């Protein structure tokens, strides 16, 4: 199966509290913060690797192409995925600041038409903007089936159709999706038995989490190809559909906490003091 995995780099999510609003309120700045691959995208890379290998025989079954849109430095994020085991990269150079979901989805559509993958496997959302929109938009633009928040994938026909489980508020939804399709993944897709591809024995237990780039992987990644394109060359419309007039931080919380004696006292305070209802 040929899988396209879009990646985005984000500011180190462990230091999200250091994100600041610029002096003029026009932008969110992340100066001094390290870039990391979006965690959900890393999970997508891991899921793609599991789908496209026989882990027992250490064999590869298909091609995994990773792509990203952003400044030249984004190549490093792509190389991290190549070091994990993806085969090839595509970097679409563009100003990160001017990207929003619609622009990204249009660019990905153009890439999909060029690459013709059987599956687009991506993170359910990025942890910076948290929009959770690109996967859905892309599926709509392509007219492809879509499954979001996927926590497990299995296939028994070499990827022609996928049985996926989606975690939703009410429980787990099981769907059968025919490919080509867009699948966005959730955290649990990297649990030990979340991906079954019919080639790796079902009894195989993966290690929890995305795999580490081994030293071999890191060195091999240097030899793997990363095609470079410019956003306009894709021919997709790069005009953002949304504009952000102004950013401001939420007011600081007072942080006070009072203990109440009973439920009645709580209801009373919520009603009369906090005016919650």
């Amino acid at each position, binding site marked *: 199966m040929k899988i396209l995995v879009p990646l985005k780099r984000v500011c180190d999510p462990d230091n999200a509290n250091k994100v600041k609003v610029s002096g003029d309120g026009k932008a969110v700045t992340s100066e001094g913060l390290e870039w990391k691959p979006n965690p959900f995208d890393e999970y997508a890379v891991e899921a793609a690797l599991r789908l496209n290998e026989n882990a027992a025989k250490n064999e590869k079954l298909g091609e995994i192409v990773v792509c990203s849109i952003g400044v030249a430095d984004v190549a490093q994020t792509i190389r991290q995925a190549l*070091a994990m085991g993806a085969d090839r990269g595509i970097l679409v150079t563009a100003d990160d600041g001017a990207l929003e979901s619609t622009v990204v989805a249009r660019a990905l559509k153009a890439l999909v038409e060029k690459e013709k993958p059987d599956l687009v496997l991506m993170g359910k959302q990025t942890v910076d903007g948290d929009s959770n929109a690109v996967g859905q938009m892309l599926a709509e633009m392509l007219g492809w089936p879509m499954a979001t928040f996927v926590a497990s994938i299995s296939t028994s026909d070499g990827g022609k159709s996928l049985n996926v489980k989606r975690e939703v508020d009410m429980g787990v939804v099981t769907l059968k999706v025919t490919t080509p399709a867009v699948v966005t993944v959730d955290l649990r897709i990297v649990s030990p038995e979340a991906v079954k591809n019919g080639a790796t024995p079902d009894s195989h237990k993966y290690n929890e989490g995305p795999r580490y780039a081994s030293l071999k992987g890191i060195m091999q990644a240097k030899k793997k190809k990363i095609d470079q394109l410019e956003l306009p060359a894709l021919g997709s419309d790069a005009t953002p559909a949304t504009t952000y007039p102004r950013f401001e931080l939420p007011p600081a919380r007072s942080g006070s906490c009072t203990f109440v004696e009973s439920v009645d006292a709580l209801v009373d305070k919520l009603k009369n003091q906090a005016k919650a209802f």
Partner: protein
Amino acid sequence: MADFTLDEDQQQIQDTMRKFANKQLRTVARQCDENYELPREVLDRAWELGFCPNAIPEKYGGYEMGRSVLNTAIMVEELAYGDASLAMGALCPALMMMPILEFGTEEQKAEWLPKFCGERFYPATAAVMEPRINFDVFKLRTTVERSGDTLILNGEKCMVPMAGQANEILVYATNAKGGGPQSVEAIIVDRDTPGMRIGERTKYMGLNSLPLFPVVLDECVVPLSRRLGGERGISFSRVINLGRALLSAMAVGLSRASYEYALQYAREREAFGEPIASRQAIAFMLAESAMEIDGMRLLAWRAAWRLERNEDATRDATLAKMYCSEQTMKIVDYGVQILGGHGYIREHPAEMWFRNGRAFAALEGLAIG
């Protein structure tokens, strides 16, 4: 003249090792410390990162991508940041692999190096230290004598990591009693060789998951072909300098672990209405730790850089080892002190790092490189 920027490969190596250390070592460190265990699955998972085959040329089964002492220093700092004790266990096979790679004859490389390229952890180690009060690593008393086509080993070794599990032990011995480093040879000895006896696991203060053993050699006879490097022999100073440089880097990692934990604690723990980090008595300890850690790293990197250039690194490696060992003791002590009573109880890792950190000034000649 100097550049302290890590290149992209080094950043990736650091990133991978840091993730591994945080997720696979730090999480089990306490349990392994309490139970004196070095779990095979931790060793196998660390092995998958590939630090042995990465150094070994393709013709011996590795995928040599340029061996670099500096990269190794970056790697071991991160592993020790996760847990020094487990990291030393995971790196133990390199004690035998690296000298073979550096000094082995063509036949020896062809025979031994492929063993370090398999999918599972290959247990091997080296025996350097000797149990006596005036031990000097450059004046070994374990002897090796040639007798026809064989070598005869006699003497006592101590603190040999994982000797109980190792398939082979690389024994360092002098061919002229009391001779300097030029007289030292390295002999590959199979675990079951008659005349070699591995004693009871030594009891010690920290590094509890790393088993250390005494090894006695009593008229232990091995074929002449087991002399590393053949007639050319080895450079024992280089072995020791590699060990010193990389132990220094590990001391940096452990110190950083202790410092970062104490820093976080001091920012959260409030006393007299403010975080204790804003009180000078605490802030000075933290600032001093931060300064020393950076200084230690620079010394360790310089020694590694010198070794990478194949220059004599005796001065750099010794300064690094000495300084890093001393500062580590201070930093892990601060780590306990900043946590106060919490630093002394086993619910926080500070006391474990204190015990582990004390080892660097005591261990010598553990050549991981």
